[in-house]
């Protein structure tokens, strides 16, 4: 975490015009990721995690109106023209998506997809690209990689497809890999394998990674830093161990409490977060979590808390009544 980080997201907002009015999907988010580091972005569905990742990649839907700066490797991505952006993406960015069924082209063989990507990026002839494809497939733990090259995505299992998607993403040696819910569509035993694979390849290539998930269990132990998002805002951000040791934001606490415990008695009620996230087309005046927060009182309903520093540096949270701290820390 020295000097300029690889990626820094500065005051980024994304507005989506909808028939019901303006929808603020991402609200003034600041984040940084250093080279070789891992950031976890956690939040429930609709909290703006995916929109934020699209904003970083500059791949927002056509109608979306982004603002703020996305600095990557010293360049402001929003200011690059189409061709320069394309080249930068080709050299240093890659994504892995949630559903490996739709993230691979259904009518091309695995080999075609890998070989063509390699040829495009690394200027290899077809024999070399083929050899490299086999190496990549072997590296992501696919047995009999030569035979797999001839197969279509639907002939592979979900876990295998996700491995192939990772191989394609890794093929151009990216500096930053964005994994958007990489394990959500997989069953639990495969989830750990895919996460281990991502972590291993990340260490080997010294690449930075952003893991987007709704599962706090995924980020625990696999990330350096965690940002918790709610209703488009980052509401708590801390080094992973600090977050799990002393979380200050009631939303983070509620998220953690909502994970089923293995030692709970059968038929225990899960302490789910009551209510629903606020309607993003009608932003609340106060803290966006206040209607669902059991600590909410007074100015929670009338004033938006901003991200404030806690006792340790790098631990930020947006709350007037943080857990485990004397009340009154605020903007």
């Amino acid at each position, binding site marked *: 975490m020295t000097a300029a980080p690889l990626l820094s997201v500065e005051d980024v907002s994304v507005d989506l015009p909808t028939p019901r009015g303006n929808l603020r999907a991402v609200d003034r988010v600041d984040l940084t990721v250093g080279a070789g580091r891992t950031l976890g972005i956690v939040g429930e569905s609709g909290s703006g995690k995916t929109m934020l990742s699209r904003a970083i990649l500059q791949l927002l839907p056509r109608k979306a109106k982004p603002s703020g700066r996305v600095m990557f490797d010293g360049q402001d991505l929003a200011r690059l023209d189409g061709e320069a952006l394309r080249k930068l993406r080709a050299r240093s960015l890659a994504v892995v998506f949630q559903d490996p069924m739709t993230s691979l082209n259904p009518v091309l063989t695995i080999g075609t997809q890998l070989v063509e990507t390699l040829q495009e*990026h690394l200027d290899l002839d077809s024999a070399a690209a083929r050899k490299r494809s086999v190496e990549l497939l072997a590296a992501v733990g696919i047995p009999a990689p030569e035979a797999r090259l001839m197969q279509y995505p639907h002939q592979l299992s979900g876990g295998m497809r996700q491995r192939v998607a990772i191989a394609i993403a890794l093929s151009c040696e990216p500096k930053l890999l964005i994994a958007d819910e990489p394990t959500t569509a997989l069953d639990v035993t495969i989830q750990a394998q895919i996460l281990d694979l991502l972590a291993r390849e990340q260490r080997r290539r010294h690449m930075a990674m952003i893991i987007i998930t709704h599962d706090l269990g995924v980020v625990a132990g696999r990330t350096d830093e965690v940002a918790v998002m709610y209703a488009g805002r980052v509401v708590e951000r801390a080094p992973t161990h600090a977050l799990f040791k002393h979380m200050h934001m009631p939303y983070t606490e509620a998220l953690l409490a909502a994970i089923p415990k293995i030692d709970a008695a059968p038929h225990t009620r899960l302490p789910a977060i009551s209510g629903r996230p606020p309607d993003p087309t009608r932003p609340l005046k106060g803290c966006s979590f206040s209607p669902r927060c059991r600590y909410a009182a007074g100015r929670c309903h009338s004033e938006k808390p901003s991200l404030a520093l806690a006792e340790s540096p790098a631990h930020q949270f947006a709350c007037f009544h943080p857990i485990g701290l004397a009340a009154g820390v605020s903007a």
Partner: protein
Amino acid sequence: MATLELGLDQDVAIVSVRRTRRLGLLFWTAVGWMIFVFAVAILAPVLPLPSPTDMDMLERRAAISALHWLGTDGLGRDELSRLAYGARISLTVGLLAPVIGITIGGALGLLAGYFRGRFEQLVVGSMDVLLAFPPLILALAVTAYLGQSVFNLTCILGVLGIPAFMRVARASTLTLARREFVIAAQALGASHARILFRELLPNVALPLLAFFLLGVAVTIVVEGALSFLGLGVPPPISSWGSMIGEGRESLEIAPQLAFIPAIAMFLTVLSFNLVGDTLRALTDPRQGAL
């Protein structure tokens, strides 16, 4: 750890790759008929057939005989010979017109579905105009203005097919362009041309090709209808449609003159549909997967 659990499904997946489904007798009969019709059409000039335009006024509407295998028509021309030469016209128009449609319509649909915006509005709007224009009037206008010829007929039918191909291409592009593999390709820095040709086109090509074979069948019928109405190929060239049209005049005396070309057309169109359906089901690698 990663490779342990994968040992099981590996063999199964690789063995089951090759398609072993049976094609069935019906499919092969259809293929056989198509090969036969194409062979006759291509080889018509070298086959020992009498000229399709030689009239024998003494042998008008002759019955089936050793000399005239399928008899003669109202002007004493050999029916079999006219059928063979008619196949050339019907198949040429039937194949070339959908080629125009699939090329222009497919390209427009792909671009419109991918780039959206103004361009899409323009394309969809102009296709709606083309669809709203009565096809028969267009055919009449063009043949009246430019004259009757095989080339003009092909162009008219080709242009009339463009909106349908455009819609098929655009509809599948719209759903595909939102798929994550397209976004993943963009994130990896793929250019528009690459995404259009390598990611989208192979996907869009499948429904387009299936539609193409249907288009061939429909065009053969439409060409027949236009020729029947006298808007098709100019006499003395024969096409199946014009033969049916001419046979209509003597339906009571010699019904075979209308029925023989009608049967040929029916069997050919049926074969195209059968083969098209079977090939689509077979070559679609997404079968059962989506």
